[in-house]
């Protein structure tokens, strides 16, 4: 089929779809990066709640991670999208303002972040538990405030343990952005489908998009491996 493919369709300017594809790719990266960071914050909060929170907080965090891990991402995204926009519109209505249209980027980031947060909670909880408790107790015994202990001892000491899991989560985040195509976000996968449907060159466009995703995965893999090596300096070799 290669000879039948018309590569000029991938040109960057208007008759070609290359520009649209690249714009969609950038959008996907933005969504993944934003969702990942939000997930990291939720994960830190969730792990803290699970390890140091009161009974109620601990159970709430447990229910959250259970829900995230048991229900398909696609369904969760649909739920978060409708509940999120609905709640925000109701809130705006209650404050006497007009209902606003939430821009797609923040809604997508919110949806991805909430899903990522469930997995990040588990990763970070495991990493914090791998830190010898004596180190944290010693910091407390020196009179550091709990926040300072977190910043100076717990976070730096748990990083090497959390990195492999968090690297995996970044890969999942980049691939999860494709699911937003089903809700109608114009990220790489949806743009690709539109381009393919308009030109009927399905193989050309889907393979081009696949190469973009693959490049993102492989390049981040290199970066993450370097980061992991750096974070593990001075630690015994990984088991």
């Amino acid at each position: 089929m290669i000879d039948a493919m018309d590569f000029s369709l991938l040109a960057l300017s208007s008759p070609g779809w290359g520009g649209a594809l690249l714009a969609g790719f950038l959008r996907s990266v933005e969504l993944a990066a934003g969702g990942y960071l939000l997930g990291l914050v939720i994960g830190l909060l969730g792990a803290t709640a699970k390890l140091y929170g009161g009974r109620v907080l601990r159970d709430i965090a447990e229910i959250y991670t259970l829900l995230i891990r048991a229900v398909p991402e696609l369904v969760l995204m649909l739920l978060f999208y409708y509940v999120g926009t609905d709640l925000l519109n109701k809130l705006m209505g209650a404050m006497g303002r007009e209902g606003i249209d939430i821009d797609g980027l923040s809604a997508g980031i919110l949806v991805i972040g909430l899903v990522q947060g469930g997995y990040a909670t588990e990763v970070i909880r495991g990493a914090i538990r791998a830190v010898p408790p004596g180190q944290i107790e010693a910091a407390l015994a020196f009179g550091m405030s709990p926040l300072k202990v977190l910043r100076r001892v717990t976070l730096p000491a748990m990083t090497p343990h959390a990195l492999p899991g968090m690297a995996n989560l970044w890969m999942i985040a980049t691939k999860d952005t494709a699911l937003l195509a089903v809700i109608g976000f114009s990220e790489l996968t949806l743009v690709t489908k539109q381009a393919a449907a308009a030109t009927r060159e399905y193989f050309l466009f889907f393979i081009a998009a696949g190469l973009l995703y693959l490049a993102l995965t492989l390049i981040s893999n290199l970066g993450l491996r370097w980061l992991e090596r750096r974070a593990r300096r001075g630690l015994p070799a990984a088991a």
Partner: protein
Amino acid sequence: MPDIDIDTPIRPAPALPLRARLAPLLMPHRLVMAGLALAALTAIITQMDWSWLPGYLPKIGHGLLVTLALLVSSVAAGFALALPLGAVQVTGPAPLRWLATGFCTVIRGTPLLLQLWLIYYGLGALFAQFPEIRGSWLWPYLRQAWPYGFLTLTLSFAAYQGEVMRGAFAGVPRGELEAARAFGMPRMMVFRRVWFPRAVHRALPTLAGEIILQLKATPLVATITVTDLYAVITRVRQATYLTYEPLLLLIAIYLCLSGTLTLVLRWLEARVPSGS
């Protein structure tokens, strides 16, 4: 990529007497939370609109069957494909090894939805161009959507499980293989009697997690018009203009499915001797 820990056997917790098992559920704050959950459930059942449910029950049942059929068939076929994929990456000749590694990398590095659409739209359009295929006995099947969904889900499961199998084949202790050789077993017999069963045994604990992940991947086939559970619920939402009720039901069904699957797999796992 971080390898999955397949060395630590997961053992079932020793059985506790019933009262000790119930005690954590009877703590005051949990009683309050259970009460709140019950109240919320009652509100959902009585306040929301469920009048559509009886009419759609048969369709929902059918969708559930489609989801389960896709899950079981793609896991079985994918696992069968993962065994050679894993073995070849550890012991195969170089070209085969590169092919298998490349396959796993490409599938694991791109979104499942993209693969699904590539196979459905791409292959579907390609097949339609050939009169030989259109005239063959396969065409009635190839015109439907589910073979493409099944193929994509199978390839995806094979790639992820193949990576696990690679680790499992590489992790079988050298001494066991050398002992088999020392007994005078030919290479194929070593593979059949020692290496292969030991590798599968080592990979079993991660299988449960992979199967749950596969369950969560199945709703994607709804985007290529396979009428699984998710597609039925989407249809209900479009027909009744209800946003939340069908979605809540869908989440409840998936929660039950994941829960039941986890319990069944844990029970099965406890029946496999851990060997170490």
